[in-house]
C-alpha cells in the first residue's frame, strides 16, 4: 500500500476530498523529481515536511528511525573528526584525503537527518558525548589507542561503517510505506557501503586479510565486541531460497554476495559502548 493508493481509496469514498487531495497527490507523484527542482539544502526539509503532510501526526515511528540513524551518524562523524585532528595518526596524501571525504559525508548525513526530523515535526536527538575507546565513558575500552594506532583506527572505522550498513539495512523494511524517507535512507545506506569498501581496502593495503566485502562472519579484527557486528553475515538463505542449492557457488561467495541487516537492539548494544552520556 502506498500513498497514492491510500489517497485513491479516500477519494473514492469521499469525492469532495478530491480537490484537496489533488495538490497533495501531485506533490507525492512529483517527489521523484524533487531533488532536481529544489536546492540541495532544501531537500531534507522537504522530505520531512512532505511526510508530515501526508501522515499528519503518525510520524513517531519514522522520527524514531531517523533519530536512531542520526545517533549513528554523529558517532561516525565525530570519530573521523577526532582522528583527522590527531596529529600523526593518518598518513598525508590519499589516506587523509579519503578519511576527509568520508567525514564530510557523515557530517552531511548528520545535517540532512536533523533537517528531515525537524521537517517531520520531530525533535532531533541531542548529540551524545562519545567514548571512542568503547568503554562507555571510562575511556579505557578496547579501542583506547585508536587515535594513536593507525591500524586500530582503521579497524574501528571498518567496524563502524559495516555497522552503519547493517543498521540502515535493518530499518528499510520499516519504511516500506514511506517512500520519500525510504529512498533517502537507501541513498545513505549505499554511501556507507562505499565507505566500508574503501576502509577495508585501506586495511588490506596495511596488511590486513580483508576484502571490500564481508566473507562469512569474518571481521578480520580479533575482538569480541567487533565480532558481534559481523555475526549473522554467514547466512546463505535468502527469501526462502537456499542459495547454496543453486549450484556452482562457494559458501564464501554466497555470504559475500548478500549483506545482512542488524536489528536496532543489536546495533545499540554495540553503539552504547561508544556513548559516555
Amino acid at each position: 500500500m502506498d500513498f497514492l493508493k491510500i489517497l485513491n481509496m479516500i477519494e473514492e469514498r469521499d469525492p469532495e476530498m478530491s480537490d484537496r487531495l489533488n495538490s497533495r497527490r501531485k506533490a507525492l507523484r512529483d517527489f521523484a523529481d524533487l531533488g532536481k527542482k529544489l536546492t540541495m539544502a532544501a531537500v531534507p526539509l522537504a522530505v520531512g515536511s512532505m511526510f508530515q503532510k501526508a501522515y499528519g501526526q503518525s510520524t513517531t515511528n519514522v522520527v524514531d528511525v531517523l533519530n536512531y540513524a542520526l545517533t549513528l551518524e554523529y558517532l561516525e562523524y565525530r570519530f573521523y573528526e577526532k582522528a583527522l585532528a590527531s596529529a600523526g595518526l593518518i598518513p598525508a596524501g590519499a589516506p587523509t584525503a579519503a578519511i576527509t571525504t568520508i567525514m564530510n559525508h557523515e557530517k552531511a548525513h548528520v545535517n540532512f537527518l536533523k533537517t528531515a526530523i525537524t521537517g517531520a515535526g520531530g525533535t532531533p536527538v541531542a548529540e551524545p558525548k562519545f567514548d571512542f575507546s568503547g568503554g562507555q565513558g571510562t575511556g579505557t575500552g578496547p579501542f583506547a589507542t585508536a587515535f594513536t594506532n593507525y591500524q586500530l583506527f582503521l579497524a574501528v572505522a571498518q567496524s563502524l561503517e559495516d555497522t552503519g550498513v547493517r543498521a540502515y539495512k535493518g530499518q528499510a523494511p520499516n519504511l516500506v510505506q514511506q517512500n520519500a524517507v525510504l529512498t533517502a535512507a537507501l541513498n545513505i545506506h549505499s554511501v556507507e557501503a562505499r565507505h566500508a569498501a574503501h576502509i577495508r581496502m585501506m586495511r588490506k593495503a596495511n596488511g590486513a586479510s580483508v576484502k571490500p566485502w564481508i566473507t562469512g562472519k569474518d571481521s578480520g579484527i580479533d575482538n569480541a565486541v567487533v565480532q558481534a557486528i559481523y555475526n549473522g553475515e554467514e547466512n546463505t538463505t535468502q527469501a526462502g531460497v537456499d542459495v547454496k542449492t543453486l549450484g556452482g557457488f562457494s559458501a564464501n561467495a554466497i555470504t559475500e554476495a548478500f549483506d545482512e541487516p542488524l536489528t536496532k537492539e543489536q546495533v545499540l548494544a554495540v553503539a552504547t559502548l561508544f556513548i559516555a552520556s
Partner: protein
Amino acid sequence: MNILKNTPSSLESNSGLLVKGVHRRSFLKWAGGTAAATSLILTGCKEDDPVIVAGEVNFGTGDNAVLNYAYALEQLEAAFYQRVIESQFSGITADERSLLTDIRDHEMAHREFFKAALGVNAIGGLEVDFSSIDFSKRESVLNAAKTFEDLGVAAYNGAGRFLTSPDLLAIAGKIVSVEARHAAYIRDLINNGTFADSTVIDANGLEMSKEPSAVLMAAAPFIKTKINAGTLA
C-alpha cells in the same frame, strides 16, 4: 496488427494454463508466430497479466516487476564479469583477478537467486551486447564495470520505493550494499580515492538514485533483447 481474436476453445477453457508468462510464451510459439507474433495481442487476458510479445521480455506487474528489473540488471552484470574473467585484460594483477572473480560470483549468485525467487514469473535470458567493450584493455573493462556498478546501485536505490513487500525490500537492501562495495572497489582501481565522489554522491552525502526509465536507457546499449518494463516504467 495481427490480432488473435479466436483463441482455440480448448485453450480458452483451460486458460489457467495461460496465466503465467512462461506458458503463454510457449503458447505463442505453438501458435506459429515468429515475426508476425511480435505484434500479436492475446485477447481474454486479465488486465494485469503481462502480454508477452515474442522477442521481448516483460517485467510484469507489482513487486515481480521490480524483481525482474533487478534480475535483468544482474543478468547484465553477471554476463559482463563472466567475459572479464574469460578474457582477462592485459596486465591484470593476481589481486585484481581474485577480486574480479569474487564479483563475478556475486553477480551470478544474485542472478540465480532472482531466477529462483521469481520462479515462473521470471523473464527469460537477455541477449547482451558488449561490442563496445575491449575486454583485452584494462581501461575499457574497468570503465564498463564502473558504469554497471554505479548504475546497479542507483537502480536498486531508486526502485526500493516500488516494492510493497517489506521482506523483498530487505532482500534488495542486502544486495544493493554489495553492489556499492563493488562500485567503490572498481572506482578505486581506476583512480584511488574516487570510491564515493561527487559524480555519484550529492551535497547531502546521498547516493544519486535513478528512476527505472533512466536506468534502462543507460543499460540499453548493452542489451539486445527488447525490454518492456511492465508497470515499472
